[in-house]
């Protein structure tokens, strides 16, 4: 019988800027905490999956230095250069293949060490794009401008959504200018970026038969991922198609409908992206995402709010970690979590977590 996979331990840490530790030390502390959370040691894992960006890390093959603090000494280790959630997906594929039993997935970014805008600029191909310089968040702004025009959106809704997220209890105060970065996006629409690491220990259903873990498993019951065209102009303007595909597939594989999902964790680097996410997964109709966030009564991202400090690149896995921890002691049955990759959210990954394994992958 095909195995299934579950999260058995996790930890995540964020720092406003972490100057007293080198990147490798941040990774070690988080990976070690995830193993402790699972109640196992490094010897118990048989593989490690990393998700990180060389260019953000300032190390030309970043995993050379970061694989060991993630626990990979003489283990089967692989790295993806896509979101932390893509890393979790590859780790899960390994478990589902029947060839691995217990894996560690780690993702991070230490944006305080570099200037991400310099790195993003390098993402642009040199012939048509780089001279124009439409990097994140400018690319996102171009999409947003088209969005507000197509759907007749009152741009003050972008302020309102950001304020709603920022004013949540427990959200630290960050200075954010209400000036335009690029119309219609203002600096105040963006979550403050922080340094962060997320680590997740996953295990196969067979592993449960053989040993005990410290917590009940949180099953990885469905997953979908999809990446769109490179050029924004070729992606179509009717929302994030890739996320629509990814979330539909993840729910289908999980065998549940969106209405039975209790916890949703979406990308929230900006109010605009959160609105796009809400619409793409189908919580709101196209053009009505902001109203849904403000008026539906559902507290979006309540268990992992990026406006309290958003760690780029690893945000999806960070969200998984926060939500897994919270769900252990809540009555919530199902969670849907998203991560994004590429400039202007070119690609997306979605993972559906459940308290029970029945009916999933």
């Amino acid at each position: 019988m095909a195995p299934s996979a579950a999260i058995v331990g996790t930890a995540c840490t964020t720092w406003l800027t972490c100057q007293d530790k080198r990147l490798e030390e941040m990774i070690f502390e988080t990976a070690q905490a995830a193993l402790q959370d699972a109640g196992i040691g490094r010897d118990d894992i048989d593989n490690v999956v990393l998700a990180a960006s060389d260019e953000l890390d300032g190390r030309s093959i970043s995993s050379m230095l970061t694989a060991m603090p993630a626990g990979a000494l003489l283990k089967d280790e692989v790295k993806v250069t896509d979101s932390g959630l893509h890393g979790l997906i590859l780790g899960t594929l390994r478990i589902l293949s029947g060839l691995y039993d217990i894996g560690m997935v780690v993702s991070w970014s230490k944006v305080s060490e570099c200037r991400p805008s310099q790195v993003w600029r390098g993402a642009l191909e040199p012939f048509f794009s780089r001279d124009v310089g439409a990097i994140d968040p400018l690319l996102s702004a171009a999409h947003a401008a088209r969005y507000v025009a197509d759907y007749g959106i009152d741009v003050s809704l972008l302020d309102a959504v950001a304020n709603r997220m920022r004013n949540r209890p427990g959200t630290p105060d960050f200075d954010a200018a209400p000036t335009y970065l690029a119309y219609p996006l203002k600096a105040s629409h963006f979550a403050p970026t922080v340094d962060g690491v997320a680590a997740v220990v996953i295990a196969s259903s067979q592993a449960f038969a053989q040993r005990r873990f410290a917590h009940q498993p949180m099953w990885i019951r469905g997953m979908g991922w999809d990446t769109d065209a490179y050029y924004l102009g070729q992606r179509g303007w009717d929302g994030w198609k890739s996320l629509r595909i990814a979330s539909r597939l993840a729910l289908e594989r999980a065998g549940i409908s969106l209405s039975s999902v209790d916890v949703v964790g979406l990308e929230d680097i900006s109010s605009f992206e959160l609105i796009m996410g809400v619409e793409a997964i189908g919580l709101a109709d196209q053009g009505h995402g902001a109203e849904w966030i403000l008026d539906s009564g559902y507290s979006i991202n309540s268990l992992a709010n990026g406006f309290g400090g958003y760690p780029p690149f690893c945000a999806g896995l960070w969200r998984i970690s926060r939500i897994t921890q919270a769900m252990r002691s809540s009555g919530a049955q199902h969670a849907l979590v998203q991560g994004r990759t590429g400039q202007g959210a070119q690609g997306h990954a979605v993972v559906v977590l459940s308290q029970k394994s029945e009916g999933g992958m």
Partner: protein
Amino acid sequence: MVQRDDLLVLGVDWHVHYDHSAGEIVSAFLKGLGNGVIQGRHCPLCGAVWLPPRAYCERCFVATDQWVSVGPGGVLEAFTIVGQKFDNLPEPPYVIAFARLDGSDSSLANFLTMTLGSVEEMAERLAVGQRIRAEFKPESQRQLRITDFHYVLA
């Protein structure tokens, strides 16, 4: 390859600046160099003294617990004599050496300074297992970098 004049090449330079946090362990090690001291980090479980120093033992996956002074004597474990000029790297010939300083369980890279000659002549005078010694720059020239010392044959 035939040069074709219908094909264009676009020249691009790209600069990215990084400020790498050294953290407490690396900072303490580099500051130690200013005082002429080389220190490794001790693992409380396996007892190994690791260089470069790190906050954790990769093998036992626990935090290291204390500093141990090592050297200045040691054993040459590997070396190479560079004979080729690489862009943005030093003028050849020079020797890159890995030496295990007395009291440590792993080898640390540094330049090895010796009388220059042809690559073959220099190779003749070096061997794995040979004794070496870490030699510091005068105090006024130290920059709290790994290059504050180098190796010489003992």
